[in-house]
C-alpha cells in the first residue's frame, strides 16, 4: 500500500514537475513574448490570414 502510494505520488509530482520545468524553459526561451506572432505562426503566404481553408465538397457558396 505504502509502496504503491509512493509510486503514484512520484508520477503525480513528476508530471507536475515536468510542467514546471517546461514552463521555465518556455519563459527562458521567449515563448511568452510576442503572442501575436505566435498566434499567426500557423498561417503562411500560401494559406494567409483571411483565407478560409475548408468547405463542403462541390458546394457553391
Amino acid at each position, binding site marked *: *500500500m505504502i509502496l*504503491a502510494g509512493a509510486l503514484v505520488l512520484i508520477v503525480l509530482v513528476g508530471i*507536475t514537475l515536468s510542467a514546471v520545468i517546461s514552463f521555465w524553459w518556455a519563459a527562458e526561451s521567449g*515563448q511568452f513574448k510576442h503572442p501575436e506572432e505566435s*498566434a499567426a505562426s500557423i498561417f503562411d503566404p500560401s494559406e494567409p490570414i483571411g483565407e*478560409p481553408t*475548408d*468547405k*463542403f*465538397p462541390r458546394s457553391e457558396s
Partner: protein
Amino acid sequence: MSVSIAQPITTSRAQKIGESDHAKNLVERQLVDLSCKKVVSLLFATSLFWLLMGSALAIAASMKLHMPEFLGGSDWLTFGRVRPAHLNTMAYGWVSTACLGVGLWLMSRLTRVELRQGPLLWIGAISWNIGILVGTAGILRGDSTSIEWLEFPYYATPFLLISFAIFMFEIIRMMNHRQPGHVYISQWYVLAAFCWFPWLYATATILLVWFPVQAPAMPPINWWFAHNALGLWFTPVCLAAAYYLIPKVIGKPIHSYYLSMVGFWSLAFFYAWNGMHHLIGGPFPAWLISASIAASVMMLVPVITVAINHHMTMRGSFDAVRWSPTLRFVVFAAMSYTLVSIQGSTAAIRPLNQITHFTHYTVGHAHLGMYAFVTMMLFGAIYYIMPRLWNREWPSAFLIKSHFWLCVLGISLMTFSLSIGGWIQGWEMNKAEKGFMEIMQITIPYLQARSVSGGILTLAHLAFVLSFTLLLMGWSPKGGRPTLLAQPRHTETVST
C-alpha cells in the same frame, strides 16, 4: 492576393517574392502531408473499424440493461464482458488510435518536419492494433481484469506500451527538429499528451495489472488513471486540434494567445491531481478526495479560458459552420467541452455527488465528454486531414451532413435521457424506504432511450465510414490545389 496587373515594377517584384514564398510553403506543406499519408491513414482506417466494433458492442450492452435476456445464450456476450469490451474498443481502439493519427499529423504540420518513413511507425500502428485486438478478444473470452478503463488482460498491454513508446519518440524527434521560432499552442498540447499518457498508462498497468498492489490501494490508482486518461491524453489532443483547426478554417488567428497559454499551463499544473473525487464516500483518506475535489473545481480555469478564446475567435464567423464540415464538428465539440467540464466540476462537489454517484448520470457525463467533445472533435479533424493527405475531396456533402445531424441527435438524446434518468435514480436511491428493483423499473424508459440513441449514432458512424471508404477508393473528385478544396465564393470576390 489583391494585386493589379498595372502595378509598378517594384510591386511586381514584391509579388514575385511573395509567389516564391507561396510556392515554397505549398511544396513544404505537401511534403509534410505526403509523409503522413500512409501511416496516418492506416491509423484513421483502423480507428474507424474499432468505432464500428465499439458501436455494435455498445448497442448489445445497452439493450441488455432493459432486456436482460438479449444475446444471453453465449458466455462471451454476457453484459460483464460486452460492456468492458465496448469501453475499451472505444477508448483505445477508436479514440486513442484517431488521437495518434491527429497528433502525428498536427505535430508534423506545425514543426514542418516530415514524418519518419520506414518500418518503425508501421510497426507502432500494427502493434497498437494487435494489442487492441488481443485485449478485446481477451475480455470477451473472460480474461478481463475488471479494473475499469484497464480491462485489457496483461498479455495485451505490452503491445500498447511498445507502440506508445514509438509514437512518443517520433513526436519528440519532430519537436527537436522543428523550425526555429515560437512553439504554437497546439504543439504544447500534443507534446504534453504524447509524453504524459505513456507515463500514466505504464504506471497504472504495472501497479494494477502486472504486479497488482493490495486491494485498498487499487481504487485510487484506478480512478487517478481513468480520469487523467481523459484530461492528459484525449483532452490535450482535442484542444490541440481545436486551436489549429478553428483559426485555419476561418482564416483568423486565435483571439488571445495569452489566454490559450493560461489554459494550457493551468491544465498542466493541476489536472494530474484529479480522479479521486470518483471515490467520494469510499474508505479513503479525506484529504486525498478533498485534494481531487479542489483540483476538479480548479479545472474551471482552463475550461473558461478555452471557452472564451474559442468563442471570441469564432465571433463574426459563426456563419462558417454552414460551409465547413470540419468547423461544424469542431465548434459542436468545443461547446460540449465547456458543458462537460462545468458539469464535471459541479458533480465533484460532495452534496451533488451524493445524488449522482453510482447512477446513469455519470454514464451520461462520460458520453458527453468522450462523444460530444472528443469524438466530434476527432471527426472534425479527420474531415480536414484526409482530403489533404489524399488530394481528394469528400465524395458527398449529403453523407457529411447526415453524419453530423445523426451524431447531434444521437448524443443529445443519450445525454438528456441518462442525465435525467440518472438524477431521478440517484434521488430515489437516497430514500431508504424505496426498494432497489422499484428504482430499476423507474429507469427503464431512460435506458430504452439510450438504446435508441445508440442505434442513431451507429447509423451516423456508418455514414462516416462510407464517406471514408469512398474517399480512399478514389470515388470522389480530385482537387487541383494543395489544400484540394475550393475557396468559398465570398473570398474569391476579394481575391484576384
